[in-house]
């Protein structure tokens, strides 16, 4: 029981990190980037490539981060840039469609380049666990949790202490008013989008250390979007706790119903939230 809970929390930290990237674009720009999961998988392949050259997986994170950041900026310039002026509903719809096209492109490109085989990054310490309080803590999961905490604090400082962070929050509340006060909305969008894609680097490596295949992106996107819905749209600080919550729920469901329904539990929670709180759990605060 407690052991499942430990794994649940560590998984939850991973979900939280995935969701953070999605929440950043969705909360601020009302873009739903369905391809976020596929970008994570692409990052995982990058990390695997570097690992085979002899680089430690955790040391690849900065490289992947920069690469994904630049990739995100290019994607924004090429496609998402054109949706800025649309109303919210059209933005969600069109970004979703573009994201879906992008997913098709990335997934199949990955299949073409690296075949459909399941891969994983296997450093020498991949099976190492710590014993404490009679429970086992996997080294990789723990470092993942630690990285997640680091990430969330850096992002928090960034959004609350810098001028750019203030601009981001202003744009997420009302982008017309923000634009009137002299904030460059387009540039804010660009940088937020690039950061969101760059944030995928840490989950990339952590998922790479588990196992991945070219088409796994949509599953990870699902986890992310469930967490975003749980935390409420536009509420970036709620994302990480919501991720932990999902991890714990999944762990409990594995304990109660068996591992086969793990995926279903999250999605049922998700649909229930959408039905019971059609206006979002707490998102209306930042939105309206």
């Amino acid at each position, binding site marked *: 029981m407690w052991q499942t809970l430990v794994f649940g929390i560590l998984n939850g930290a991973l979900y939280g990190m995935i969701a953070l990237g999605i929440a950043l674009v969705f909360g601020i720009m*009302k873009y*739903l980037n369905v391809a976020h999961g596929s970008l994570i998988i692409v990052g995982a392949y990058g990390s695997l490539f570097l690992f085979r050259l002899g680089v430690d997986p955790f040391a690849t994170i900065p490289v992947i981060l920069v690469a994904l950041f630049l990739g995100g900026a290019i994607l924004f310039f090429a*496609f998402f840039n*054109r949706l800025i002026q649309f109303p*919210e*509903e059209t*933005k*969600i*719809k*069109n970004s*979703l*469609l*573009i994201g*879906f*096209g*992008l*997913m*098709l*492109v990335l*997934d*199949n*490109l990955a*299949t*073409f380049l690296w075949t459909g085989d399941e891969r994983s990054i296997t450093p020498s310490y991949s099976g190492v666990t710590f014993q404490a309080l009679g429970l086992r803590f996997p080294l990789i999961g723990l470092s993942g949790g630690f990285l997640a905490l680091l990430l969330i604090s850096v992002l928090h400082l960034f959004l609350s202490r810098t001028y750019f962070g203030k601009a981001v929050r202003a744009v997420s509340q009302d982008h017309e008013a923000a634009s009137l006060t002299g904030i460059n909305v387009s540039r804010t969008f660009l940088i937020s989008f690039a950061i969101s894609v760059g944030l995928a680097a840490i989950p990339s490596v952590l998922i790479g250390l588990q196992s991945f295949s070219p088409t796994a992106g*949509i599953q990870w996107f*699902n986890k992310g*979007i*469930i967490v975003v*819905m749980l935390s409420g749209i536009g509420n970036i600080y709620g994302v990480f706790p919501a991720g932990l919550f999902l991890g714990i729920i999944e762990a409990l469901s594995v304990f109660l119903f068996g591992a*086969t*329904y793990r*995926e*279903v539990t999250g*999605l*049922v929670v*998700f*649909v229930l939230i*959408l*039905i019971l709180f*059609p*206006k*979002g759990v707490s998102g209306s605060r930042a939105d309206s």
Partner: protein
Amino acid sequence: MKVPKKIWIPICAVVLSAFVPLLTKSEYFINLLIMLFIYIVISQSWNLQGGFNGQISLGHSAFFGMGALTTRLLWMSKIPILLAIIGGGLSAILLAGMVGIPCLRMRRGYFPIGTLGLAIIAQIAVGNILPVPGSLPSEYLAGYSLPSRYYLALAVAILSVLVVYWVIRSRAGWAFVAIRDDEEAAEAVGIKTFRFKVKALLISSFLAGLGGGVFAYHQVSYYYQSPFELSWSFLPTLTTFIGGLGTVLGPILGSICYLALNELFAFTLGEIHLVIFGFTFIMIVLFFPGGLMSVPARFQSSSATRKT
């Protein structure tokens, strides 16, 4: 209902396709056409909701799969196939009524996300409950004839086109389009928007279920979860956008295009052909929202653009 001009084109197409099994013995070609008809059914169904009513659904794989599952199970328990397929369509309506309508109640713009969740839940649930491939028993295999599949698929495809054609020319069709174009304005002129969105969803899911039924009748052996795969949600999105969103002809053109390109490039280019599809799709969404149907209009004077 007024008989449209150029009625002879679809009639010729139907008559011509009715003779195909008599003219060719190529099973490959007939199977290809059956797939085309299934694509047309699900694309028409998707287009009614996504194109005419503006509710982009990613849950059509759930309706399609539900239709396939019910049809297959009914048919296996000795119920005539026609009744079984109607049962499949009805079961899809039931699913749409139970879980699709709550999705419509969500905040504006969240319908695609909700239905995506629904589609994934359905796929995982069926994959867990019925993990085995469903093969036809030997007495069914002995009576398997390709032309009967062909004509059924053709009939359902024609039915779907007629239903969509008829619906969008009825009062409800005007309401659908009004809701798509401006929901608040539609509400303001007295259209009960939610009721019409439900109507579009139910008709659309029924057609998708029928398409699933044809799939179940045609395939000899498949995993029960394979018609639930998300690609069945993405396929009609792709074909409809390629052909032309919100037109009756668009999904047909899109399906033909998609299938033809698929057959041409799947072997020569492998996965790359899907990369090209994805890229084309993005380009269409961004620059050609009218799809193929808008191409002639771009060359003609603007007076000729109103045809659907």
